[in-house]
C-alpha cells in the first residue's frame, strides 16, 4: 500500500541535539506541497541524551493517523540502531550515518540500506561542535529532499523565512541541505519509490498543534486571567497564550498588559486563582494534565457547588500517577466527568483535532459562564503537542461572549432583592452578581451547605433543593454541549464510537473494515453530559464498538452509566500503550469482538459485562510491531 504520497517514515535521533527543528522543517515542507501529512513526536521525559523519534506519515487519501508500518527509517542514533532496523517494513529503507560502518549483525536482507557519511561530511564542512551537531540533522533533511523528492524551492523558502534575520545560519543550513541532497542524488537512485508528488498548495489549511490552537481560542474568547503550573504535555498551551498576549494584548496607549498570567506555586493554587478570577467576573483558565486534575479535585467541587465559572484544560498523558509524561492516553475521562467528592458532575468538551481545540476553547468559556460551573476541555498529548493539518481557523467578528446570567448595577438597582441561588427561570440556572458592582448584589459564596437564598444551611430540605437544582442545571447542559459528529454508511447495523484524538485512526479503520466487508457507522462524541443524540445513535445500532485510549474502557463506562442504551449493545475496544492510536488497533479490536464468542450480550460468571478482554490483546495480534 506504500507508494507515491503514501508512506511513513521514522527518524531516530538523540534528544537535545536539535533534531526537532530539522524534523519540523521536513514536516512543513511536505505540508506546503499540499499533501496530507502528520507528524508524531515520540520523545522521552528527559532533557538531553536519550533516544527520541519523529514519525511522519504522508497519505494522499488523507489518512494521517499514526502507523507503525515504516517505509523509511532514518537512524541517527546508534544506541537504537537494532530497534530501528527491526522496525522497517519488509521492502523498506534504512538511512543511516555511514561515517562508521554498520554492525554486521544489523543486516537485513529484505530492506535496503542507504548509507550517507553524515557526520563525516558535517565535520569536513563545519566547525564548532555545536554547529556540527546541529548541521548533522540538516544533512539528513537534505538527503530526504532528494530521496523523497521534496520540493527544494519550498525548503529554501522555509529556510529563508526561519533565518531571515540570521543570514549566517541560513548559509550553513543551506549548505547542509545541499550536502545531503547532493550525496543522495549522486549515490542512490532518487527518488525512492515512496516519494512525494506536489498536489498544489492548500491555502485552506494550516499545520498546528492543539495546544497552540487552544491558546488562540482563549485569546479570542477574551480570557484575561490564566493560572497554571508547568506540566507536560500542557505547558505549551499557556506558553502559547502568553506569546499571543505579548503580541495582541498590550494596551495601545499605555503599553500595559490586558491580561494576567500567573505561574502558580502548584495546581491547587492554579485552580483557586481561576475560581477567584471567575468569581470576580473574568474569563479565566488553567491548563494541566492528569496529576494536576487530581490535585485540583477539592477546588473543582467547590466551583461546582458554589457555581463559579472557569475553564480547565486537561491535556492527558499516560497514567496512573506520574506515568509516562511524554506519552498519550485518554485516561482521565471518568475522573473529569465526576471530579471531586460528593455528588458532582461536570461539563466536558472533547476536541478531536487542533481546529476543535480552537473552537471548543471558545465554547468552553461560553458554557462556563452560561452554566456557572467549571468546564473541562479534555485533549491529550497527541492532539495537544503534535502538528496536525486542519482547515484554517475562522473567526466571526460578530461573536460576543455569552456571559450568562449576570446582573449588572442597573438590574440590581431595579430589583427588590437579589437571591444568589434561586431558580428564577426554571432552567436550574440562578443569577449571579460580581463583586464591587452594587451593594444590593452582595452575597456570600461558600462551599458549605446553603439554601437558595444563599444563606448557610444545615437543613435537609433547603440543602436538597439546591443540589437538585444543580443536577437539573448540569443535565440541562446536555443540549448545549457540541453535538456528536455522526458519519453513516449505507447498510451499517453496527457502529464505532470514539472521542478526541482517536478520530483519524477510526476514520481510517472504517475504510479498512468496509473493504473487509464490515460496514460501520461512526459517532464521535464531543461533549458531556451526553446529548440525546448520543443515546439515540447507540440505540439505533445493535452493537457499538466503543474505542478508548485507556485500559479500563472509561468512555465505555461513562456511556454505560449515562446513555439510555442497554449495556449489551456497548462493546469495548481499548488501546493504552501511550502511542497515538493507529487504525490497526481499532481494526483488530473490532475484528476480535466480531469473531468472538458472542458472549458480549450474555453474562458469564466472570468478567465485566460488555467488556470482553479481547481488546487488551490488540497489540499481540499485530505481531512484533511496537505499539
Amino acid at each position, binding site marked *: 500500500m506504500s507508494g507515491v504520497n503514501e508512506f511513513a517514515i521514522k527518524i531516530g535521533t538523540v534528544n537535545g541535539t536539535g533534531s526537532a527543528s530539522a524534523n519540523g522543517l521536513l514536516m512543513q515542507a511536505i505540508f506546503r506541497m499540499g499533501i496530507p501529512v502528520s507528524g508524531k513526536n515520540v520523545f522521552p521525559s528527559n532533557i538531553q541524551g536519550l533516544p527520541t523519534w519523529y514519525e511522519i506519515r504522508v497519505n494522499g487519501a488523507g489518512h494521517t493517523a499514526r502507523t507503525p508500518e515504516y517505509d523509511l527509517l532514518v537512524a541517527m542514533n546508534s544506541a537504537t540502531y537494532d530497534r530501528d532496523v527491526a522496525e522497517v517494513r519488509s521492502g523498506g529503507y534504512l538511512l543511516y550515518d555511514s561515517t562508521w560502518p554498520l554492525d554486521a549483525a544489523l543486516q537485513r536482507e529484505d530492506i535496503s540500506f542507504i548509507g550517507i557519511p553524515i557526520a563525516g561530511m558535517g565535520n569536513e564542512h563545519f566547525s564548532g561542535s555545536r554547529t556540527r551537531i546541529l548541521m548533522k540533522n540538516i544533512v539528513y533533511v537534505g538527503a530526504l529532499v532528494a530521496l523523497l523528492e521534496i520540493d527544494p524551492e519550498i525548503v529554501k523558502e522555509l529556510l529563508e523565512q526561519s533565518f531571515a534575520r540570521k543570514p549566517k545560519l541560513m548559509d550553513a543550513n543551506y549548505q547542509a541541505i545541499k550536502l545531503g541532497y547532493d550525496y543522495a542524488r549522486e549515490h542512490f537512485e532518487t527518488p525512492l519509490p515512496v516519494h512525494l508528488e506536489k498536489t498544489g498548495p492548500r491555502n485552506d489549511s494550516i499545520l498546528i498543534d492543539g495546544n497552540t490552537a487552544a491558546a488562540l481560542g482563549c485569546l479570542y474568547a477574551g480570557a484575561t486571567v490564566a493560572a497554571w503550573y508547568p506540566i507536560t504535555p500542557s505547558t505549551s498551551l499557556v506558553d502559547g497564550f502568553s506569546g499571543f498576549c505579548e503580541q495582541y494584548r498590550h494596551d495601545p496607549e499605555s503599553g500595559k498588559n490586558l491580561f494576567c498570567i500567573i505561574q502558580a506555586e502548584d495546581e491547587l493554587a492554579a485552580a483557586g486563582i481561576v475560581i477567584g478570577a471567575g468569581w470576580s467576573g473574568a474569563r479565566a483558565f488553567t491548563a494541566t494534565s492528569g496529576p494536576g486534575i487530581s490535585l485540583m479535585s477539592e477546588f473543582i467541587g467547590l466551583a461546582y457547588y458554589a457555581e463559579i465559572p472557569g475553564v480547565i484544560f486537561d491535556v492527558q498523558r499516560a497514567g496512573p500517577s506520574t506515568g509516562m509524561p511524554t506519552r498519550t492516553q485518554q485516561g482521565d475521562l471518568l475522573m473529569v466527568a465526576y471530579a471531586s467528592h460528593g455528588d458532582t458532575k461536570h461539563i466536558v468538551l472533547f476536541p478531536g483535532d487542533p481546529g476543535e481545540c480552537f473552537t471548543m476553547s471558545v465554547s468552553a468559556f461560553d458554557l462556563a459562564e452560561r452554566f456557572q460551573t467549571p468546564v473541562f476541555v479534555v485533549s491529550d498529548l497527541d492532539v495537544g503537542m503534535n502538528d496536525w493539518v486542519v482547515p484554517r481557523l475562522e473567526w466571526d467578528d460578530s461573536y460576543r461572549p455569552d456571559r450568562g446570567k449576570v446582573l449588572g448595577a442597573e438590574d440590581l438597582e431595579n430589583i427588590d432583592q437579589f437571591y444568589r441561588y434561586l431558580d428564577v427561570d426554571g432552567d436550574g440556572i440562578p443569577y449571579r452578581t460580581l*463583586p464591587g458592582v452594587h451593594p444590593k448584589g452582595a452575597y456570600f459564596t461558600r462551599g458549605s451547605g446553603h439554601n437558595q437564598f444563599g444563606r448557610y444551611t444545615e437543613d435537609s430540605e433547603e440543602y436538597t433543593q439546591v443540589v437538585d437544582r444543580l443536577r437539573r442545571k448540569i443535565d440541562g447542559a446536555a443540549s448545549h454541549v457540541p453535538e456528536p459528529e455522526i458519519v453513516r454508511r449505507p447498510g451499517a447495523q453496527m457502529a464505532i464510537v470514539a472521542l478526541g484524538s482517536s478520530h483519524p485512526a477510526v476514520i481510517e479503520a472504517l475504510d479498512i473494515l468496509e473493504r473487509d466487508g464490515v460496514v460501520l457507522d461512526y459517532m464521535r462524541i464531543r461533549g458531556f453530559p451526553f446529548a440525546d443524540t448520543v443515546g439515540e445513535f447507540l440505540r439505533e445500532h445493535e452493537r457499538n464498538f466503543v474505542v478508548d485510549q485507556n485500559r479500563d474502557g472509561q468512555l465505555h463506562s461513562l456511556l454505560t452509566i449515562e446513555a439510555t442504551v442497554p449495556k449489551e449493545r456497548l462493546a469495548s475496544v481499548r488501546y493504552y500503550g501511550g502511542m497515538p492510536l493507529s487504525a490497526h488497533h481499532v481494526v483488530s479490536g473490532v475484528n476480535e469482538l466480531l469473531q468472538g464468542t458472542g458472549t458480549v450480550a450474555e453474562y458469564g460468571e466472570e468478567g465485566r459485562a460488555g467488556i470482553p478482554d479481547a481488546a487488551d490483546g490488540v497489540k499481540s495480534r499485530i505481531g512484533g510491531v511496537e505499539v
Partner: protein
Amino acid sequence: MTHTPKAKVRHPGLKKNALGLTRRDYEGSMSTLCAGCGHDSITAAVIEAFFELDMPPHRAAKLSGIGCSSKTPTYFMNESHGFNSVHGRMPAIASGANAANRDLIYIGISGDGDSLSIGIGQMCHAIRRNVNMLYLIENNGMYALTKGQFSASADVGSRSKWGKSNVQTPIDPVLLALSIGATFVARSFSGDRKQLVPILKAGLRHPGLAMVDIISPCVTFNDHEGSTKSYAYTRENKFEVVHTDFVPLTHTITADYESGGTRDVTMHDGSVVRFRKIAEDFDPTDRKRVEAYLRERGDQGEIVTGLLFIEEDSQDFHTQQGTVDEPLTQVPFERLNPGATALQELQKKFR
C-alpha cells in the same frame, strides 16, 4: 453567642463617616461564635477600620478559608461580596479575584490552622506575589472548629483542653513572612483594639500584601492554664513595640496614645503611617534588624506587637507584572479580541 447586631433602622444620632455611613452600615450577620471568642473582637476592629477609612462596603471583598476564624467574614459588612472558600486556600482565591479586579479592597481572613498548616504554601506564595490585600491570621494556637487540636503555632509545652502537651516547635507567621520577603508584617492582639484598628487601616492602604498576625484566644479550647495563647498569658507577655497611628490624607486621626519616639512612613497611596515606638531604636523598615529584635525579645518570652515591618517601596503584583490600570473585568471584549483579520494574518506562521 456574641452579637454584632445589625440594625435595620437608622439611628440619626450615630456618628457618620465621610460617606455618610454609620458603623452599623459596616456590620454583618449575627456571630455564631462562642461568647467571648477573640475572633469577634477582631471583627469589631475590622468594622471600625473600614468605617474610619470611609471605604464603601460594596467595594470590598471578604475572603476566607475554613475554621471559626474563617467564619467571621459573615459577621461584618453585609454589603460586601464574601467568599468562604475551602480550608487553607483563601490565598489562591484572593490572588485570582485580585488578578481579575485590582480595584477592590481585599480582606482575607484566616486562622493559624488555615494559614500555617494546610495553607502555608499558598500563604507564602501570596506573600511572594505581594497580592494587594489585607491578610489576617486570627491566631489561637489551635484548630478550634475541629475541637481543639494543636496547630503549628502552638507553643512548645502548651496543653490542650484534652490534656495533651505540644512538643513541636511553633511556626511564627511573623518570622516566616519576614523571611520570605513580605512587604508589610504586623502583630497584634484581639483584645487590644486601640492598637489593632490603626494597624488594620495601615494594612488596608498598603500597596501589597499586609500580613497581620493577631493573637486571638479561643475561650472554649484554649483558655485554661498551660495555654500560651490564652487571654491571661497574652496580656501578661505582650510587649508592645509600636503603635500604628494611621493618618489618611483627608483628615488626620488623633488618638490619645502615649507619646514617645515616632517615625513616619509614607504609604503608596500617599497617606502617612506614624509609628510610635516603645522600644528604643526600632526601625520598621530594616528587615534584618526587625528579625533580630523579634528573636531577642522572643528569647525573653515576650510577644512583640505593632507594625513590625514595612517595605516603603512595595509594588503589588499588578505593578510588577505591568497589568493595565483598569480592572481586567472591565476591559471591553473588543479590546481583548484581535479580530478575524488578525487571525488570518497570524495563521501565516502555521503554513
